């Protein structure tokens, strides 16, 4: 039987606010345990939550960016359950009336046609703390620094049909929240993570199969891996005559397997109800329009502009707009370089990303800044150096030897464009190689390259190649 895979994702994006969603404590990552948890975060008796307006603005921004409805009236609800790292015994979230409803996003898996994925809703909620099971000798430590950190939970429709699509969707959201500057996207620190709802059904069937929920997938690779493993497991279960049960499963990346955490019967009754400590969130049209005005150019718009205005190919534009940082880098470099955006694109995608990849660095950590690269490209464009010499200049800049002009100056890499000087060198080479000259003139055209090589060798690659070609043709004729 041929199976169709059905996937929906719940992405948790940590909003990049300075303080927590309901308290004034800092959200900075990495502080010593419990040093960033105030009385509100600790859930002490008598304390009350006060909503962080910045978190609301960020949620609204996201909603507008995915073409969703930013709700004029949404409600915070308590999700009740006991857990040691959940200080109040409930999480403040949104349940029946979320702040963002009904958006969509177009995704593209390489080699396939683009698809539109529905976004059911996005709601604001607070994060829990962290339980630490190591170093406590049979006990558990609780770090509440993360408690109260604002999260935007983005829930998709079950519209994805492969692990690759799920990853493409997740990457697209990951890029989008960074474009919007509402999330730092740092997956290692848990700022961006997701749960996947996975089910299978016979191809062509309408009815959805029973799903399992895969928890806390914190890398793109794990999402793909976990989904594929889970799909295989479900197929095995069904084809073996069994039934998939609705349950929550945990992906274990060490063992590369998913295993059951709890079944539907064991699922919590969260007893959601509107939080009486918080008034409903009311956002009027003027507010929503004001937020709309702050929206930056979004990835798809940027990509289209790179193609139409800068003359990049679809693929290049796609790669360069995948993250806002890379797109910004490219644009700065291209502006400084002056003309030939395509050349800038090639350098960024080729030499720069290659070097970064080799060094295991992110674009933000590049030793060669956009300004440095742009400055160098300017020197190619104005014929100060050739593309070949530029590779040498790039390496020097990467090693911190200064900007392109400094490197060119110090290493004497300036292209020789003085016709007389080149002519003199050509004359000498012709005089020193009479045999090759005869053979060339007798019709052995290939030897033209030999002469070019000799000139370049003599000028240490600095002669303007076009000029060399032209002069050699005259002299050898």
């Amino acid at each position, binding site marked *: 039987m041929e199976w169709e895979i059905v996937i929906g994702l719940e992405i948790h994006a940590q909003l990049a606010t300075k303080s927590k969603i309901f308290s004034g404590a800092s959200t900075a990552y990495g502080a010593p345990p419990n040093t960033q948890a105030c009385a509100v975060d600790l859930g*002490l*008796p*008598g304390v009350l939550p006060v909503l962080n307006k910045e978190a609301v603005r960020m949620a609204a921004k996201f909603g507008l960016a995915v073409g969703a409805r930013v709700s004029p009236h949404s409600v915070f609800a308590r999700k*009740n359950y006991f857990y040691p790292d959940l200080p109040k015994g*409930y999480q403040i979230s949104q349940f029946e009336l979320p702040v963002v409803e009904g958006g969509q996003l177009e995704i593209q898996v390489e080699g396939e046609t683009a698809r539109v994925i529905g976004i059911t809703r996005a709601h604001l909620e607070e994060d829990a703390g962290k339980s630490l099971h190591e170093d406590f000798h049979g006990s558990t430590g609780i770090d509440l620094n993360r408690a109260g950190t604002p999260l935007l939970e983005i829930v998709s429709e079950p519209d994805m049909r492969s692990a690759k699509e799920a990853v493409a969707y997740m990457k697209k959201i990951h890029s989008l929240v960074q474009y919007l500057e509402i999330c730092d996207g740092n997956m290692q620190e848990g700022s961006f993570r997701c749960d996947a709802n996975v089910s299978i059904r016979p191809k062509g069937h309408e009815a959805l199969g029973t799903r399992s929920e895969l928890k806390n997938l914190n890398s793109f690779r794990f999402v793909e891996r976990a989904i594929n493993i889970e799909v295989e497991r479900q197929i095995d279960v069904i084809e073996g005559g069994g039934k998939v049960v609705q349950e929550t499963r945990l992906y274990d990346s060490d063992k590369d397997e998913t295993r059951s955490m709890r079944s539907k019967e064991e699922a919590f*009754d969260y*007893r*959601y109800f509107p939080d*009486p*400590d918080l008034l409903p969130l009311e956002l009027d049209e003027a507010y929503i329009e004001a937020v709309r005005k702050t929206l930056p150019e979004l990835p798809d718009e940027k990509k289209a502009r790179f193609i139409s205005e800068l003359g990049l190919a679809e693929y290049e534009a796609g790669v360069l707009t995948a993250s806002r940082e890379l797109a910004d880098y490219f644009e700065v470099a291209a502006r400084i370089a002056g003309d030939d955006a395509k050349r800038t694109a090639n350098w960024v995608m080729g030499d720069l990303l290659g070097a970064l990849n080799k060094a295991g660095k992110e674009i933000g950590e590049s030793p060669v800044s956009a300004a440095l690269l742009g400055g160098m490209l300017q020197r190619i464009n104005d014929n100060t150096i050739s593309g070949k010499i530029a590779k040498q200049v790039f390496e020097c800049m990467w090693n911190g030897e200064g900007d392109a002009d400094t490197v060119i100056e110090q290493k004497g890499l300036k292209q020789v464009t003085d016709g007389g000087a080149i002519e003199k060198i050509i004359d000498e080479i012709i005089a020193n190689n009479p045999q090759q000259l005869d053979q060339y003139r007798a019709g052995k055209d290939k030897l033209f390259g030999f002469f070019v090589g000799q000139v370049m060798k003599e000028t240490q690659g600095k002669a303007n190649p076009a000029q060399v070609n032209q002069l050699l043709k005259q002299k050898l004729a």
Partner: protein
Amino acid sequence: MTAMHTKTIAQLSAALHRGEVSSVELTTLFLERIKAHNPTLNCFITMTEAQALAAAAAADRRLKAGDGAPLTGVPIAHKDIFCTAGVKTTCASKMLDNFIAPYESTCTAKFIEAGAVMLGKTNMDEFAMGSSNETSYYGAVKNPWDLERVPGGSSGGSVSAVAARLAPAATGTDTGGSIRQPAALCGLTGLKPTYGRVSRFGMIAFASSLDQAGPITYSAEDAALLMNVMAGFDERDSTSVDCEVPDYSANLDNSIEGLKIGLPKEYFDGGLDDRVARVIDAAVKEYEALGAVVKEISLSNTALAVPTYYVVAPAECSTNLSRFDGVRFGHRCDDPQDLFDLYTRSRGEGFGAEVKRRIMIGTYVLSAGYYDAYYLKAQKIRRLISDDFRTAFETVDVIMGPTAPTTAFKLGEKADDPVTMYLSDIYTIAVNMAGLPAASIPAGFADGLPVGLQLIGNYFDESRLLNVAHKYQQATDWHLQVPTAFK
């Protein structure tokens, strides 16, 4: 110093400002009275003697410097539901027997700023759940008018202390009548302000959408002085309301000629004790003599108030009390075997029976499959109850009736019958459901026990309530009666 303990706050404030008495002298007097009578009444959980004397000395310096506010140097008591920095804050529960609050509630902080002197923290029903002050972990509180009777609840310690003249005023909180009912049972003036008028920050939550702090005093004039300190917007409480705070003392003497009083017929039916009814009738007649016009009104959903309240309040308290889990503060059981054991034994040992009962009711009504039938329905009825009042206030200025159906009952009389106990709040609960302000003022006695008259006002109409109460207190002296044993 003669009989300073029977003076009103207004009188004490004047004496302090004139230098006739010092705050240290006053504070010492009340501390001595607490020491003498608390063993009998059990109205204080914690006495803060050293802090009180230090605060009194500071207040005296402030008064001397001519920098005194109306309450500077005046001793008061706080219900042990307000977090007070560095002082044990128990909510009368074993769960918080070891809890020293690391911060100050907004309400008590305002009193500190005003220069008032805290004598101690008063006893109460555990987590404010009760109408007799019998659910306290620290034992029942006695009514100074009759030591065999309850003072009412949940602010039972506050009213007992003020009625026995162990403190000239106290704070209380009112979720379903917890200021007004005990004020009525102990012959005091108690005001529950409009929901949102006084900050709830640092006040340990029972039912967040109903809880409201207010003053317990001898007179309306004193209540106004306390309200001038307590009321106001607080950015740390999202449900506090950002609207102007009037000077509550300014309009006390306004004429009430032509005041339109509504008497809800549902407040005078079968459940009301005849003796109480007679006192209320007499009080209403007094108002007519003062020029007010009385008409009968109907609050048709009155009978639904108690059952609705016992869905909403337990629902909210069941989750408000989830934070008491033995993990970060409060009672933790000995030698927990695992997480489940830690939770169940810590909570099982830490909470008393009434608190457990309400947590269970609340958990039940919020559960999947029951939510719509109970919680959602209760919210709808709550709206109907509010609408009743809204309609009534289209034709009347103030609604009056009894505060409680009976006078103070005997200790133990209703302790094993929760439903009968719940019905003692039958006239007060609807006010909390609607979020309206209401006061209880002393209106006379029935068989030697105080009877309270309830005045219900429109939203943020506390000034008028205090004015209406004050005019009555100018014409009567019920509010100045002192129980014989505490004169």
